[in-house]
């Protein structure tokens, strides 16, 4: 808290005005977005029955390997067995009941007991095997199999670690929130990973929000910072240079020149407040916040304005393709934010009901269409980050809330499947060309090197130089499972 205490005393006068461009001011304060969460910290002073506790100082706990995260989350649940974890046995035994195959053991109630349902009913087994709806090919030097729905992503298998042994507990889309917080939706609410990263790390760019959320979140529209405070919520962003942020432009006709004078006047008045109210940290923070706001308003539209990108780059992200241009723009914006030092860019793909990937019916058509809208942009992103030297310091994560059942739902769908699914990571400190963990022959259960969702959190925090246990807030006990354990096998 003392880092916010500065003097803006009687020395200030009306003639000091026109402080735009005094770049030194913020640097003197050491204030970023995090630092401005002044009230939050003042509050927490009260919680200090643990006298030793201090809020994070914005510095990593140990040398980081990466500085930013691009978090791609596929709403609805991607079929693991038709993306990154091929299971030929499902096709071979298609039409049979699982109980009539050599793999009947997967239905062992003990194994199914990790599932924690929110609503009524027991586990709904989808027992009639439904053949894989897509072919697989080997890619890269490692010869890793990836489904034909992801040809562009597949070109990068040598750059990524695929974790095929994920599991979660919520059988429904509450698992979306669970993937981000580590907690089942019936448990007490926790901040999301992005909120923790924001909380733990100082900003690399004072002109931009540090934690950005793009795309829809139909099922878990919550405040990411939760008990860390609203300062650690993601800032929702639209890829629209004319209107990228809430309140990011005047809602009534006001010119930039008028606004500039207004900001100048407000700063002068705030500084003059120091005559009667010297050493007031809140006033100091407010002055800084207006400086930041002024620059943020000016900077953000430029980041989502792609006019300075080459046509080749735009094509790389599929901006010329109607089926994938929306996601492509989001990913191109993500790269541009990463270049400018934004820490965590969370991109949710696929709105509608509980998420676009939720293929309870017409599995093939659903995933074909969704894959088409994300594949080229993701491939483009990885290529672009790599050629710009950004991939080494940026972690790209491809995740979803759960997998889909090997058995059929209705005629041609797959149901939710929390027992096994796949995610992959690439870039900053992640091993290249690794397939980690495995599921059984049907992709029913993660059987080898099983990982709960928070192991992904721990891996990312580790690469960012953070130890989640040292970020804990007094009075907010976190459990071992909240912290997870970094997956050492995929860390370079």
């Amino acid at each position, binding site marked *: 808290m003392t880092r916010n205490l500065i003097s803006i005393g009687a020395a200030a006068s009306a003639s000091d*005005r026109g402080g735009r461009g005094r770049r030194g001011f913020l640097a003197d304060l050491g204030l970023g977005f995090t630092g401005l969460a002044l*009230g939050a910290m003042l509050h927490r002073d009260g919680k200090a029955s643990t006298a030793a506790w201090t809020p994070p100082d914005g510095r990593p706990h140990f040398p980081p*390997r990466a500085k930013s995260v691009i978090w791609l989350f596929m709403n609805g649940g991607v079929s693991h067995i038709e993306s990154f974890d091929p299971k030929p046995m499902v096709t071979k035994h298609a039409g049979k009941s699982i109980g009539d195959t050599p793999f009947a053991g997967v239905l062992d109630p003990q194994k199914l007991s990790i599932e924690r349902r929110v609503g009524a*009913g027991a586990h709904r087994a989808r027992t009639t095997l439904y053949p894989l709806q897509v072919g697989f090919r080997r890619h890269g030097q490692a010869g890793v199999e990836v489904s034909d729905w992801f040809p562009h992503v597949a070109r990068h298998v040598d750059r990524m670690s695929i974790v095929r042994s994920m599991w979660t507990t919520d059988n429904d889309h509450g698992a979306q929130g669970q993937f981000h917080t580590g907690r089942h939706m019936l448990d007490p609410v926790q901040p999301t990973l992005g909120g923790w990263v924001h909380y733990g790390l100082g900003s690399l760019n004072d002109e931009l929000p540090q934690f950005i959320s793009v795309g829809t979140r139909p099922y878990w529209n919550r405040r990411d910072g939760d008990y860390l405070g609203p300062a650690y919520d993601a800032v929702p962003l639209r890829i629209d240079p004319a209107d990228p942020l809430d309140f990011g432009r005047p809602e009534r006709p006001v010119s930039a020149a008028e606004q500039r004078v207004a900001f100048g006047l407000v700063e002068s*008045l705030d500084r003059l407040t120091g*005559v009667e109210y010297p050493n007031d940290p809140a006033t100091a923070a407010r002055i800084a*916040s207006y400086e930041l706001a002024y620059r943020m308003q000016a900077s953000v539209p430029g980041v989502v304005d792609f006019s300075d990108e080459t046509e080749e780059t735009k094509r790389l992200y599929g901006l010329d393709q109607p089926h994938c241009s929306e996601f492509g723009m989001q990913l191109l914006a993500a790269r541009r934010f990463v270049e400018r030092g934004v820490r965590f860019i969370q991109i949710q793909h696929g709105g509608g009901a509980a998420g676009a990937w939720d293929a309870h019916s017409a599995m093939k058509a659903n995933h074909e269409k969704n894959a088409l809208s994300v594949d080229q942009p993701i491939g483009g992103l990885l290529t672009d980050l790599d050629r710009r030297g950004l991939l080494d310091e940026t972690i790209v994560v491809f995740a979803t809330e759960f997998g889909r059942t090997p058995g059929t739902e209705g005629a041609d769908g797959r149901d939710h499947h929390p027992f096994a699914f796949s995610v992959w990571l690439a870039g900053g400190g992640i091993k290249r060309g690794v397939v980690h963990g495995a599921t059984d022959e049907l992709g029913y259960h993660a059987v080898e090197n099983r990982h709960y969702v928070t192991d992904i959190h721990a891996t990312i925090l580790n690469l960012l130089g953070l130890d989640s246990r040292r970020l804990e807030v007094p009075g907010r006990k976190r459990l*071992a499972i909240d912290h997870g354990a970094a997956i050492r096998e995929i860390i370079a």
Partner: protein
Amino acid sequence: MNVLAPDATPSRELPWLPRQSAHAAVAIAFAWAAVAAAAEPAAGDQAAIYSEKIRPLLAERCFSCHGSLAQEAGLRLDTAALMIQGGDSGPAVAKGDPDASLIVDRTNDPDPASRMPPEGEGEPLSPEQFEMLRAWIAAGCPAPPDEKPEADPRDHWAFRSRVRPPVPPVVNTGWAKNPIDAFVATRHEQAGVVPQPEPPRHVLVRRLFIDLIGLPPQPEELAAIEADPSLDWYEALVERLLADPRHGERWARHWMDVWRYSDWWGLEEKHRYSAKNMWHFRDWIVESLNADVGYDEMVRQMLAADELYPENLDKLRATGFLARNWYVYNRDHWMEDTVEHVGKGLLGLTMNCAKCHSHKYDPIPQADYYRMRAFFEPHLVRQDLVPGEGDMARDGVPRVYDGRLEDPTYLFVRGNAGSPDKSRTIEPGVPAVLEFEELSIEPVLLPKAAFQPERRGWVIDTHLAAARHSLDARQEAAGKKPSPFTAQAVAVAKTRVYDVECRAAAMRAKWAADDAAETEAADSVLEGLRAAALTANEAAVKAERELAVARAWSRVAEVNEKLQAAFEEKKDAASLAAIGRNLDAAREAVEKAQKALDAPIGQHTQLPGAAWAATNYVKANEDDPFTGFPETSTGRRSALARWITDPRNPLAARVAVNHVWARHLGKPLVATVFDFGRKGATASHPELLDWLASELVEHRWSMKHLHRLIVGSAAYRMGSSLANAGRSAAIDPDNKLLWRREPIRLEAQVVRDAVLALAGTLDPALGGPPVPKDEQEASRRRSLYFWHSGISRNRFLATFDDAMVNECYRREQSVVPQQALALVNAGFVRDSAAAIAARIAPRAAGDEAFVDEAFATIVGRKPTADEVTACMAAMAEWRALPEARTEASVERPLVNLVWSLFSYNDFVTVR
């Protein structure tokens, strides 16, 4: 400091170097060096390591079973001496010999079944912690010589009964205005700090207005009060504001935070959380505060109005406090929310920490958590029909009732709902440490209107009126657009009126018979009444069937119309065939309904007076069966309410006054407002807290009495400036001793309301349904009337730290750039600025006079000379811009000035 090492410390050969900033890299390198250095324990000083690391670690992992709370196996670990002394199995530590120490053995046991702490009770020690413990034992278990064991938890200050403390004598008698100040001044004098002087009158006036009614004074009001020569102007103003209906709105929003107000929400239209029409609970809070209903009485109504006032719909609104926890899919989740927040909100107790195991810090065994749950186990939620609205989804009073009278409460092993301990049923009860007399729980016999809500006088009339209203509407529609379909709709509506009339008659006949049976009516009379009831029932059953037939015909007419339209539009054969199939189905339905006309007479459907909030626990996507409204209530919740509001309850009044104090003064006396337990903060002024709690209780728990006391104190009236406060600031930089006022950033609602109020556009209407999200932009209602739920948040209010729906015992007061953008760019702020400028401009002669008036309006004071200079300079700049020449009713530079002042720090700050 580095006890908990990172899981995998990456190799230091590959330090990340940021691309952009060499400074940042240097900073990180420094930070890392500092961390690395601190990681090495100061060798040799094992006593210090014990005090700083080992004892806190044992406190966290072990003391709850081996300390003052409990002594499992006769063992305590809360001092080194007690460890050496040991328990039933001998000493826990062997000085100098870790390998012979039981504690080393047990904490490092590879078998999870015998390892300490037991599974589910705490994390095992990490290898680093384990080594630290060994090293300390090897060094001979050094500890501070004066080490004291943990105090008896029952002696914790907040669990001890409250005694009204004597008001201390003070030296600074000139300063003190009431007894609050005696408590505050005593501490000032002990520490040598000096209270900051009272600020000018305009500061106090703005402070009182915002604090008591949530709106700033209008400039005319402010001028009048500043000119008031009477000595008691301050007290008079306080009385005026406390009597203002807007006071209830202001303080209702505070209590809505604490009591977790939430409108209903779910996934799209599917209702999952809270209750429809929850706004009745909000209106009850506003009205109760304005009427100065005692805090104790409010709490009693919130927990048990259905048992205490079963016929009083106004008071039943209070139980929205409980109905808010309703959750369609999971009963345990609902119960957990209830127990947690009754504990935190009303008692300052973290009962929730005892769900899976006994409380780690407070004397609350795990069973106590379930005893608390048992109070709520029988209760469910329903909507009661309100006069004039037959559709209870559109309006009704959400309230609770005991509907699951026989449901047992079981302790869940490790908190797991899948592992109930069915060997014993848990009875409702309060934690033993807080019990001052045996709790008496008596079932409550309910009046008929409670369990037969259709008997309420207005219910039948409302259904009749609704049916007739619908008939009028259909007739009007048919007149405008005659067609077979609209004609059939009229027929349906007519049949419905008939149906409702028949059912109303049948219900009345049945009540007459039932009531007569309860009095000792003659058999012949009784028989007559019963026969009449049977006849009326038959008519009602038939009417219902006629209605079904009419509705089936209506469907046929509807499909026919579609078919005709499809023919005219020359739709393809497949579409026509599909509609044809619908027509067949509709005709079949008519046949079926007609056949049913002759079925044996059963029981007619009652016109409902209440609707159960159907849960979905048993089968997926299917309402659970309705179990009826019982004739008795268990009396559990009213017993709980009596215990909480008993003057002898040590917690309730303390927790309440702490909440009130925090909102007046900007910080609470007990920082952990929802945790008064041993892990919570200690009170900064314990005697003051108890004195205020005693005042509250002894003045019939009147919150207005409390407000008067607090805002009347010199402590409240101090200035917030740090000017000339060097000595006090040096002694007590955090103002723990209250030697100055804390400035307060306006709450989200106040920011918006103040802008609109100053513009004169704030809608003064009180109460009513919440403003939905898509109407909020244009709405001029006070912000507390905005839809507020888990998924519906107003984007302007959210920017200013609006209450989190799930839990908000204190608002954050962050300062973030998004707030600046919101104030600068929000349309309503600019519109308000234009309105204010237009009002001031005609009477302000020249820019300087305008600046004067604008300042007085927005900030509540005249500007200083320097401020005028700054404003004039900005005006000159604006006048030089081409935009200044835009046609407008009021000059743009004037609007710009007012608009800028909304961004000024002292607009969003209570000084």
